[in-house]
């Protein structure tokens, strides 16, 4: 590819190639604190290429592909090139990672123990992880939590935090403009803006943590909390894992251990402050 860079996020190395310079310049800027490992053998290749030759110049239209691709992925506008690269990295992880059980969850750490939060897009798990990361917790990741198949630890995958719509201003106010990426308007998921994790999240991205609490956050509801039975937790986590089936017996053992060991709560909330107060209280109750 005409433009390329190789960087490491947690245990995964990505080589990102692009027919255009702009998306990679944005990636290089936002991932400046991450190890650049040019020449390394990458776990995954992400390619941003024109949907056809003309579309490199005329109303440029990006097709995301790489080692793993989706045949029916909709092309994206070049203005959303950064998002295309991020989605490309997520796609490679979701479809190709085998070394850990991949949970579609955010995670933060305190005192060597991890809080894992899982939920659908819009549940508030990214926003909550981002805000906690500014309040004494270490952000481990907003999209994927990696569950070690042997020791049961949660390992970080602290890529840029992807914030949508109403969450953008809440987090931008908390972290400041310098750590925010460009505003990407009117994407398929609405407005999106990326946040650069704090230095510690990146410099300590090889440090795992023992999971201590699992939350199922749900934004947009009256504050409420309930225990979640282990059967339901197991079912929801298999749904939240992109590679549970591929991980085979090792995945079964790791996930059942996680479910048996880690207490789970569903938390509804209507604002970030409310959610943080609930999280801190639940965490302290477990102390």
């Amino acid at each position, binding site marked *: 590819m005409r433009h390329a860079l190789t960087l490491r996020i947690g245990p995964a190395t990505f080589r990102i190639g692009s027919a255009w310079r702009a998306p990679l310049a944005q990636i290089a800027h936002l991932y400046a604190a991450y190890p650049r490992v040019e020449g390394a053998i990458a776990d995954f290749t992400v390619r941003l290429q024109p949907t056809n030759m003309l579309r490199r110049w005329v109303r440029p239209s990006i097709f995301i592909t790489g080692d793993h691709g989706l045949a029916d992925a909709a092309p994206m506008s070049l203005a959303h090139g950064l998002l295309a690269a991020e989605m490309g990295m997520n796609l490679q992880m979701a479809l190709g990672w085998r070394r850990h059980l991949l949970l579609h969850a955010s995670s933060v750490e305190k005192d060597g123990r991890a809080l894992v939060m899982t939920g659908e897009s819009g549940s508030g798990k990214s926003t909550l992880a981002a805000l906690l990361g500014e309040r004494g917790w270490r952000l481990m990741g907003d999209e994927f939590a990696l569950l070690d198949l042997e020791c049961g630890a949660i390992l970080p995958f602290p890529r840029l935090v992807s914030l949508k719509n109403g969450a953008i201003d809440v987090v931008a106010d908390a972290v400041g403009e310098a750590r925010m990426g460009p505003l990407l308007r009117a994407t398929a998921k609405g407005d999106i803006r990326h946040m650069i994790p704090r230095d510690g999240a990146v410099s300590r991205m090889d440090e795992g943590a023992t999971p201590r609490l699992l939350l199922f956050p749900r934004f947009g509801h009256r504050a409420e909390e309930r225990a979640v039975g*282990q059967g339901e937790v197991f*079912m929801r986590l298999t749904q939240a894992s992109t590679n549970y*089936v591929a991980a085979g*017996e090792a995945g*079964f053992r790791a996930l059942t251990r996680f479910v048996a060991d880690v207490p789970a709560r569903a938390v509804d909330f209507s604002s970030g402050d409310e959610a943080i107060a609930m999280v801190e209280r639940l965490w302290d109750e477990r102390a």
Partner: protein
Amino acid sequence: MQQGFGTVDAQKTYRRDPADRVTPCTLEDLTLLYHHASGQTHMVISPVPELLACMADGVAMTAGDLHDCLARDYDLGPRDAAEAEIAAHLDALASLGLVRPA
């Protein structure tokens, strides 16, 4: 649930084969069974774990044999209804590949 049980063949035998080995894990009131041959995870509740435990040694058993095994530890109620229910479970377990007709 009682409908359809009448067609069950009480003499039909089933057994657990080493090839159908599962790794069980109990989570509160349900049991997960990881089926090695298929890589599938089955989520079951009582009386399935108890039925499979009775069949652990691989000997072929009828619904009646299993009724006798379970009746040692549990109050199963009227025999006919319980046997019919056990037979239906055996049929379902066979279709999942967890037991096989002997």
